């Protein structure tokens, strides 16, 4: 079956991203397809490559990047939510005259239409938030 996942909260502050990750991993292990993981609201902060969590803690961003690599996940960060919160890729940084970008491997920035499309194209949408 084809799932879509929506993550509404950032890493560490709330469990939403952890739960979404565990759910996504379990769905893949059961042979389901993940059409897209969409990061909205503070969820965009899951895509920052600048995080340095303590050595004895999980690395939420890397965990997503690795899962995406292994399973060719489409991980999309909402552009409007990302701009508000300071999550940029190279193109966005250039467009807004910023001297740095911070997006991690495996994530791409795009519009909210990608969330709607995920709702249409997938058979189930599962929302994780606060």
């Amino acid at each position, binding site marked *: *079956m084809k*799932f879509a996942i929506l993550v*509404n909260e950032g890493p560490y502050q709330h469990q939403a991203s952890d*739960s979404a990750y565990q759910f996504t991993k379990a769905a893949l*292990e059961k042979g389901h397809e993940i059409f897209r993981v969409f990061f909205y609201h503070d969820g965009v902060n899951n895509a920052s490559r600048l995080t340095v969590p303590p050595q004895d803690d999980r690395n939420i961003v890397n965990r997503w990047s690795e899962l995406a690599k292994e399973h060719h996940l489409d991980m999309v960060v909402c552009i409007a939510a990302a701009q508000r919160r300071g999550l940029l890729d190279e193109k966005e940084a250039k467009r807004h005259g910023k001297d740095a970008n911070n997006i991690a491997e495996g994530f791409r920035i795009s519009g909210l239409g990608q969330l709607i499309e995920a709702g249409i194209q997938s058979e*189930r949408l*599962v*929302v*994780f938030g606060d």
Partner: protein
Amino acid sequence: MLHTVNKSPFDRNSLESCLRFAHQGHSILLFEDGVYGALKGTRFETLLTEALKSYNIYVLVPDIEARGMRTDGIIEGIKPTDYAGFVDLVAQTKAVQAWL
């Protein structure tokens, strides 16, 4: 339909709102801080016991165990499940509603 509740009933009104709108026969999954609602001996035990007459209620065991509880502390009738079971619940029902 599957309803998911991830907040403690002591802290927020999500579980109560969910119970107000869920249909007879729907499934409800308690996870994250929502698992506190599934425990015996709390102020919400009566509410949940009553709800079991109308709904299939599930609770995520990894969240129960993380919080120092055990499956034998769960109200009788609430079904323990894991992430794989969560996936099955989603697959089995037409749509999922998250009570954030």
